[in-house]
C-alpha cells in the first residue's frame, strides 16, 4: 500500500482544515470574541503539521489502488474529526473531549446530532465552525482536494472519489476528475449562495442566514438557535429552507445534466422520480394524519413537508416537537430516515438508488418463481445493471443491517427506552441527527454515556462513508503488505 501517498493526502486534509478554521477565527474577531485564539492556534498547528507531511514525505509515485484509496479517505475523516474537536475542547465551551469529538463528527458527517442543550451559549466563532463542518463534510474534503490539487491520486483517482461519494455506482459526468470535482463544488457553492440570498431577502440576520445555508447545503442540520429552525417564525423562511434541503438531496449529476442541457437524460433518471414521489406521498400522508393537531390545514402540511424534506435528506432541522404525533406519522419518519436521499447528493441514509435496485431485484425474484427459466436483467434508467453492482448492493444491505443491529445492542446496554435507543442508532447511522423520544428534535444526546457516544460516533462516520472504507480500517487484511 502506498503509505507515503496516504500521509500526503492526510497532510493536505490538515492544511485545508487549518485554512477553514481561519474563517471561524475571522468570525470571532468580528464579534470581538477571544475564541479567535483557539481557532488561530489549532489552525496554525494543523496547517504546519500538514505542510510537514506534504513536504517531507513527498510520495515517489501518485499511483493509488482501491485499498489505499479507501484507507486514505477513512483516515482523512478520522484525522479531520480529531483535529476539528480541538477548538471546542481547548476553549472549554464543550468541557469533555468525547463530547467535543461527538459534536465534530456529527458536524463533518452532516448528521446534526448535538450534545448541546442550548447552542446559543456558544460563541459565534464556535457556531460558525459547526456550520462550516456541515458544509465541508457535505460534499466532502477529498472531493475538495481532488478539485484543488492537480494529479492527486494519479490516473486512478476514481478510487478516492468512490470512497467518499455516496451511492452504488460512482462514475464521472465529465472526462477529467479534476473538472468533475470543480463542477460539483461549483454547483454546491452556487446553490448555497442562492439560498443565502433568499434567506437574507426573508429578513434573516446575516450570521443566521450564512450558518443556516451552510447547514442546509451539507444536509447537516446544525442550527444556531436553541429552538433550531422554529426560531425563525416565518412561513417564507421555513419553506425556503425546506425546498433547499430537498434540492441538496438530489443527485448532483442531475444538475450537471441540466447545465449541459441534457434535459431528456435528467428527466429519465428513475431515482429522481422515486425521490420526488416518496416526498409527495409522505407529505400527503403525514399531513392528513396530523391535521387534527394543528389549527389549519396549511399548518399541518407545512409541518409535514418540512419534516419530510428534513428527514429524507437526512438534514435533521426541526420546527417543533414531533413526539406527540400519531404513530403512523412517526413510523413514516423512521422509515424515510432509513431511505435517505439520492445517491451522489450531500444527504445520507441507505440511498434511494439502492432501494430501487433491490426492489427491482425482488421483483425479478418473483418472476423467477413464476417462470423459473425466465432470463431477465435488472435495468435502471434503461440500461441493464451489472451483476456485480447488484451483488454489492445486496451485500451492502446485509452489512448495513448488521452494523445497525450491533450498534443497537451496544446502545441498549445503557437501558434507555426502545424508541430512544433505536432511533438514536437510526439517526446517527443515516446521518439524520434527531431521532424520536429523548433524542427527538427538541432533545439532544448529552445525557448518553461516553461509551454510547463513541458507538454512535462510529455509526456516523460509517454512515457518511457508506460503511466499507471505515470497516476496511479494522480489517487486518488491509494492513498486510501483500
Amino acid at each position, binding site marked *: 500500500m502506498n503509505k507515503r501517498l496516504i500521509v500526503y493526502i492526510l497532510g493536505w486534509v490538515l492544511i485545508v482544515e487549518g485554512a477553514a478554521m481561519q474563517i471561524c477565527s475571522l468570525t470571532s474577531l468580528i464579534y470581538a470574541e477571544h475564541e479567535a485564539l483557539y481557532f488561530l492556534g489549532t489552525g496554525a498547528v494543523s496547517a504546519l503539521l500538514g505542510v510537514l507531511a506534504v513536504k517531507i514525505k513527498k510520495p515517489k509515485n501518485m499511483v493509488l489502488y482501491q485499498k489505499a484509496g479507501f484507507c486514505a479517505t477513512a483516515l482523512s475523516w478520522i484525522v479531520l474529526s480529531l483535529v476539528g474537536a480541538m477548538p471546542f475542547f481547548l476553549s472549554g465551551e464543550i468541557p469533555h473531549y468525547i463530547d467535543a469529538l461527538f459534536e465534530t463528527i456529527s458536524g463533518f458527517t452532516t448528521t446534526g446530532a448535538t450534545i448541546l442543550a442550548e447552542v446559543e451559549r456558544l460563541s459565534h466563532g464556535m457556531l460558525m465552525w459547526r456550520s462550516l463542518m456541515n458544509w465541508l463534510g457535505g460534499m466532502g474534503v477529498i472531493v475538495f482536494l481532488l478539485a484543488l490539487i492537480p494529479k492527486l491520486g494519479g490516473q486512478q*483517482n*476514481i478510487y478516492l472519489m468512490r470512497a467518499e461519494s455516496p451511492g452504488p455506482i460512482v462514475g464521472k459526468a*465529465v472526462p477529467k476528475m479534476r473538472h468533475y470535482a470543480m*463542477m460539483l463544488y461549483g454547483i454546491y457553492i452556487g446553490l448555497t449562495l442562492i439560498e443565502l440570498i433568499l434567506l437574507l431577502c426573508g429578513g434573516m440576520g446575516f450570521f443566521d442566514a450564512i450558518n443556516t445555508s451552510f447547514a442546509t447545503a451539507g444536509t447537516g442540520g446544525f442550527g444556531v438557535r436553541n429552538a433550531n429552525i422554529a426560531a425563525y417564525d416565518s412561513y417564507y423562511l421555513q419553506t425556503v429552507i425546506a425546498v433547499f434541503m430537498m434540492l441538496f438531496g438530489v443527485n448532483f449529476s442531475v444538475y450537471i445534466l441540466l447545465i449541459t442541457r441534457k434535459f431528456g437524460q435528467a428527466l429519465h433518471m428513475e431515482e429522481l422520480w422515486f425521490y420526488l414521489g416518496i416526498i409527495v406521498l409522505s407529505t400527503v400522508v403525514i399531513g392528513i394524519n396530523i391535521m387534527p393537531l394543528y389549527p389549519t390545514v396549511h399548518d399541518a402540511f407545512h409541518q409535514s413537508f418540512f419534516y419530510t424534506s428534513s428527514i429524507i435528506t437526512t438534514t435533521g432541522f426541526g420546527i417543533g416537537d414531533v413526539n406527540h404525533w400519531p404513530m403512523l406519522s412517526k413510523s413514516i419518519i423512521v422509515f424515510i430516515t432509513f431511505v435517505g436521499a439520492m445517491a451522489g447528493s450531500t444527504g445520507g441514509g441507505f440511498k434511494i438508488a439502492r432501494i430501487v435496485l433491490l426492489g427491482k431485484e425482488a421483483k425479478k425474484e418473483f418472476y423467477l418463481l413464476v417462470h423459473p427459466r425466465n432470463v431477465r436483467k435488472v435495468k435502471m434508467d434503461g440500461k441493464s445493471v451489472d451483476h456485480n453492482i447488484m451483488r454489492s448492493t445486496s451485500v451492502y444491505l446485509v452489512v448495513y443491517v448488521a452494523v445497525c443491529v450491533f450498534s443497537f445492542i451496544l446502545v441498549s446496554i445503557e437501558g434507555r427506552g426502545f424508541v430512544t435507543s433505536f432511533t438514536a442508532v437510526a439517526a446517527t447511522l443515516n446521518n439524520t441527527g434527531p431521532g424520536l423520544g429523548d433524542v427527538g428534535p427538541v432533545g439532544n444526546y448529552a445525557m448518553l454515556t461516553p461509551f454510547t457516544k463513541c458507538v454512535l460516533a462510529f455509526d456516523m462516520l460509517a454512515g457518511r462513508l457508506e460503511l466499507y472504507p471505515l470497516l476496511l480500517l479494522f480489517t487486518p487484511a488491509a494492513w498486510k503488505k501483500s
Partner: protein
Amino acid sequence: MFLSPVCLFLGVTKMKIVIVGCGKVGTSIATELIAEGHELVVVDINGTAVKRLSDSIDAMGIEGNGATYQTLKEADAGDADLVIAATARDEVNLYACLMARACGCKNTIARVRNPEYSNDLFRVKDILGLSMFINPEMTAAGEISRLLRFSGALEIDSFSKGQVELIKVQISDRSLLVNRAISQIEILKGKIRVCTVERDGEVYIPNGDFVIRKGDRVSIVSKPEIAAKFFKKANLNIGKSRHVIILGGGKISYYLAQRLLKAGIGVKIIERNPERCTELSEMLRDAVIIHGDCMDQDLLLSEGIEHADGVVALMDYDEENILISMYVHNVSRAKTFTKVNNAHFGTIVDQLNLECVINPKKIAGEYIARYIRAVQNSLGSNVETLYRIHEDAVEALEFRVRSSSTVTNIPLSQLRLKDDLQVICISRKGKIILPTGADTIMPDDTVIVITKHKGLKDLDDILDGN
C-alpha cells in the same frame, strides 16, 4: 460549454477525444493521449473492458455500442474534437466514424486493418470526416522496413501514406555529391529532390546554386525505392540490408515483405502453417517462403541465419520472439527485430538488451498521439501531416488542396511564394510529382511544402503577404 470557462481558468486548450473500443489498441492510444493531458471518453460494448480502462486512467467510461448514435451522443461526441474508432472490426470502426459525423464531430480516425478497405478510403474520406486511418500492423511493418532499408539514415519521415519519404543523411567525403551545386546533380534527375541542408547548426532551404559540402546533413524527398537507388549511385552509405529473414508469416510479415521486396531487398519467410505458406507464396512472388518451425535451430542454420543482414521475429508468442532474437544475436551479426505484444513487462524486456523491440499496438498509439500533437492547433485546417525536422527549425507539411484555393491552376514559377518555403512534392490521384516551375497545383491534390515559417494552416498561406 459549462466546462470551457473552467478550461480557460486552468489555462488549458486540450482536446476532447472519444475513443471507441477499449482493447489493446484503444488502451494504448488512450494511455498516450492521457499523458498529453487531453480529455478522454472511452466507449466499449463490454462493460468490464470500459471499467478496467476508466478505473486505471483519468477518463470517463461509457458502456454501449460505440457505433450507435445514442451511445455516441451520450459520450458527447458532438462536442468532441475527435473520435477515434479502434475496435477489432474495420466495418464497425468505419460505421462508428459515420455516426460520429452524424453527431456533429468533424474529425475522426478509424482503425482499418484490411488493405482492401484502406485502398478505397480516399473516396469516402469527406463523408466519414476521416482525418486519418490507422493500421497498426502496417505501421509496424513500415517502421521495421524503414530501419532495415536505411539503417544509416538520420531521420525518415513519410508522406502520402508512405508513398513519399523525406530522408535525412550525412554527406561523407567519398560521396559524388560533395562540392556540387544542386542543379548539377545528374543522378536520377527529376526523381529526387534536395529539401534542406543543415550546416554548422544553420538550416538552409537551398535553391539550385547551393553547393553541397562534406559533413552537411541533407534531407532528400523521393519515392522510397528511388531513394535507395540514388543513395547507391551517389556513393552514400545508408546501411541497406540485402538479405532479411522473417520468422512467422502473419499480417505484419506480409506488409513488411511487400515493402522490402519493393526496395530490392531479398526476403525469406519461415512459417509453420502450410496453408498460410501457400497463401504467402501466391501473394509475394519474389519472396522465398519456407515451411517449417522457426524454433528449429537446424532449419534456421540451414537457411543461413548466420549470414542474414536482418532477422525479424514476428511470431505469435512474445516468449518465442524474445528467445529466438537472443539466439540470433549469438550466432550472427544481423540486425534483429523482436515483436512484443504484451506491454506490461516492458521494463523486463528492456533489460534483455534486445536490439530493437517492436510493439505494434504501442506504435499505433504513438502514431496517433504524434498526429494529434502535430495538428492540435490546426484541427479543421487542411494539414494532413506535419513533421518538424532539424530540431524544429523546419516544418514539412502536407496539405490537401481545396477547390476554392487561390494557388490552383497557376504554374509554380508564377506564384509569389514566401521566402524560405518550397513546394517539394505534389501527389495527384496516387501519382507522385516532384514539381518544377512549370507544374501547377490542382484541386484534390495533396501538396508537401517545406518551410521555416511556423503555423501554416492552409495552402493559401504559402503565398507571400498572406
